[in-house]
């Protein structure tokens, strides 16, 4: 089983400040990494590095597959209904919307969604992407108990299908996660 992600000696600098260096990480199918650490220690930066949206100051990142990212940005057309907005990114979004409890909101314009519903929409986009590697930046922010439960089920299904994920979260994420703490 080849690794989905391999980081070797990765260093990250933001705004002239070195956040971390010498980071090694390897993710195989079914694995999950829980990223923790104090504010501004580089959790979001690491996620963006892995996503390829940021270049590392040093080191090497190998990704074997496509990625999906759920972060702060909604990236959905505010005027479109939710179903159509999600279908812009992935043609087959119905299953993902149902998984995150959004099936009844398909005709609602995105600008009318509540913050929690918008959170679920970001996660639905990741689920619909069918990418083997998920990157989640504070996925539990703004989610109620039902949303958190649905996310956990989606993650379990994803890992069982051979996918992997990295999630940065201040909140606990359940069992079976490798812990990676930055900023020590």
């Amino acid at each position: 089983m080849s690794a989905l992600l391999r980081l070797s000696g990765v260093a990250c600098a933001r705004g002239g400040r070195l956040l971390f260096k010498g980071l090694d990480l390897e993710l195989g199918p079914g694995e999950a990494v829980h990223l923790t650490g104090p504010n501004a220690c580089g959790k979001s930066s690491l996620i963006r590095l892995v996503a390829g949206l940021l270049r590392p100051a040093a080191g090497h990142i190998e990704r074997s597959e496509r990625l999906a990212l759920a972060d702060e940005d909604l990236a959905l057309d505010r005027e479109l209904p939710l179903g159509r907005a999600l279908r812009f990114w992935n043609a087959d979004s119905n299953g993902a919307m149902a998984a995150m409890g959004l099936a009844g909101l398909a005709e609602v314009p995105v600008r009318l969604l509540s913050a929690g519903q918008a959170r679920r929409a970001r996660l639905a986009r990741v689920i619909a992407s069918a990418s083997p590697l998920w990157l989640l930046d504070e996925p539990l922010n703004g989610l109620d108990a039902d949303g958190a439960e649905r996310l956990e089920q989606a993650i379990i299904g994803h890992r069982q299908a051979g996918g992997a994920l990295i999630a940065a979260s201040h909140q606990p994420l359940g069992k079976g996660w490798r812990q990676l703490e930055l900023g020590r």
Partner: protein
Amino acid sequence: MPVAFFLLVAALVPFAVGPDARLLERIGGGALWIAALTAALLPIERLVEPDRADGVLDQLRLHGVAEESIGAAKIAGHWLSFGPLLVLAAFPGAALLGLGPEPLKRVLVSLLVGTPGLAALSVAVAALTAGLPRAGSLAGLLLLPLAVPLLIFGAAVSGTGGEGPLALEAAVSITLLAASPFVAAAAMRAART
């Protein structure tokens, strides 16, 4: 909106320089081109920045879309949003300036050839200024000088016509069209934090 602005500027010119018909006919082409430039400048802050701020550019990258393709698509979209309308507005615009059918034809040709280059330049400048404070003013400061070659040859085609200015206007327009997706792409990548 760009059309309304275009006609407004065209309407202001006779008030500014006086009703001398011969003078207006001489400067009419150039005045319409200045109106086209200011109209193309209007939506510049909305061309790239909203997508950058909302994470759309990031998600497009993750879905495998090259930034150059995004730039090219935005150029096409921007041109469609003002190019054909401006060509249509040239009819009343020319009437406001007292231009006859021959000068009007030259204006139409110069707009058809030059507005794609203007759209390309606008998208590149929008990408370069996306995310910067006071981006609107910066974009104007950047766009207007860079648009001068297009303005010179576009106004020349509108005014006196001839093959030379038309060939040069087409050359400038094509160069802008060819280079802009790559400039915009580099700018979008650089704007990523």
